[in-house]
């Protein structure tokens, strides 16, 4: 078993080296596909992390009328706390709301100083659980908005859902594009392995004549495709890493505005392993298709 694998790898590597100019072509084709896929995974990962972060802090804001009574407020609080999809409820008084406003928007603070009364309403800030359904939140929102003492209910989940949809769109577009490129890469590998097969047709004939099993003849060619695929993925990851490092300062500034993440991070270990294994799988497929000519 191990001797057979060693034979496959040794023969495949020798073949890749002999036909290196053609092999470089297929390695680059796979590298382009893997680079595009990696880039989209990177962007989708950051979008997902932002969505997760925002989801955790997704809030339902229940604004209270200035004239609402303590009893009405208690009733609202009790309804909110009794709802399973609510993770936490915090009361923000008019004074606390004003202080927060002044802290968050210091340039607008003078405007509030000139106002006779505090214009900001008291509110309940409701943090929602991460697994709550949109319909359940809608029902809660509708119920609370009808309660006495409640002026308005704001639910910021709607645009978050839109962001999630946008993220999914980006991810699926990326996957589709990468899929087309992967197909092109698989075809290139198939043709490059076919060239190698053609160059070694005498050798294949000899192997057939001595009664070598098909797996023994085809194995090196499949392995050759896998080597090309794996190398392509490694090249793509290296390029992605270099591109990320070189553009990190600009990207971080951009990301700070776009995503609520501290800095741009490289792909996770799982994604890196997935890309390499995926590249090898594509190469393997190309090698298999090409070597099907041997029978």
């Amino acid at each position: 078993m191990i001797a057979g694998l060693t034979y496959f790898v040794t023969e495949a590597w020798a073949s890749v080296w002999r036909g290196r100019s053609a092999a470089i072509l297929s390695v680059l084709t796979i590298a382009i596909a893997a680079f595009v896929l990696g880039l989209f995974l990177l962007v989708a990962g950051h979008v997902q992390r932002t969505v997760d972060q925002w989801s955790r802090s997704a809030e339902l804001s229940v604004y209270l009328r200035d004239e609402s009574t303590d009893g009405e407020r208690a009733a609202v609080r009790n309804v909110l706390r009794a709802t399973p999809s609510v993770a936490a409820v915090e009361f923000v008084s008019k004074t606390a709301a004003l202080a927060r406003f002044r802290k968050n928007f210091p340039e607008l603070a003078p405007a509030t100083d000139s106002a006779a009364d505090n214009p900001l309403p008291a509110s309940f800030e409701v943090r929602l659980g991460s697994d709550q359904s949109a319909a359940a939140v809608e029902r809660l929102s509708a119920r609370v908005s009808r309660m006495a003492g409640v002026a308005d209910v704001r639910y910021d989940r709607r645009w978050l859902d839109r962001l999630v949809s946008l993220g999914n769109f980006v991810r699926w577009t990326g996957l589709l594009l990468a899929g087309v490129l992967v197909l092109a890469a698989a075809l290139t590998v198939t043709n490059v392995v076919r060239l190698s097969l053609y160059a070694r047709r005498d050798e294949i004939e000899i192997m057939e004549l001595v009664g070598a099993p098909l797996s023994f003849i085809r194995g090196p060619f499949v392995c050759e495709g896998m080597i090309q695929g794996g190398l392509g993925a490694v090249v793509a990851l290296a390029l992605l890493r270099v591109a990320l490092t070189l553009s990190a300062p600009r990207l971080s500034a951009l990301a700070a505005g776009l995503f609520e993440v501290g800095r741009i991070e490289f792909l996770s270990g799982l994604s890196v392993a997935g890309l390499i294994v995926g590249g090898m799988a594509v190469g393997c497929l190309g090698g298999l298709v090409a070597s099907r000519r041997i029978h």
Partner: protein
Amino acid sequence: MRSCAASWNARERRGAILAAGCPTGAGTLSSAARPNTVIEIDGLSKRYAREVFALHDVTMRVGRGEFAFLTGPSGAGKTTLLRILLRQEVPTAGRVLVDGRDLAALGPADVQRYRRTLGFVFQDFKLIPRKTVFENVIFALRILGVPDVQQRRRTFQVLKWVGLQHRANAFPLELSGGEQQRVAIARALVNEPVLVLADEPTGNLDPDLALEIMNLFREMNAGGTTVLVATHDRELIHHVGRRTIALDHGSVTESA
């Protein structure tokens, strides 16, 4: 020059294989069940196009341990017959039995197993240029799953028999034509074949080298291996003096 054939005769070769506990070819019949005829052909025809016969109604026998020549002019059908015996071609009609196997009934995996019981030698040597002499010969054993130590030992033995043990690390293109053919013969013999098929094995060699190669075939045959050599060289056939099966226009014209 080559060492004497007695250095590795058939009995020793077979003994080495049995000692190693290795198959001499999957599916080979036990000695008790082995037919006395290794090649048994009845009414064989091979047609490539409408009314274009490469072989027509060929019937012939080659006994176990026999050395026979297949002769005839170019286009007589010698190579086609050998290709059928190697199961590279399938007959259009007729029956071909080799060591009791009906070649028409073999599936793809059976063909592989069958070929492992054969040895072949061609005019153009069919060596892998990027592999050394040793690697070219040991390759035939590797696919049999023979243990590494046995593979190496048997490869050295057979290279010694053809007198090329000192060129084991050379590449085929570094050898003369005669030496390359001796490597091909070593490869043909290393797996203990039931039958060795040779297609114009001396076609690229001068007369002296041709005789030397023929002597190797004779020694191989003296060890018990059945040998069928296709050649159009009448002088060589006369010199070796074995049974001749003559083909002309795809039909057997003489068998003596």
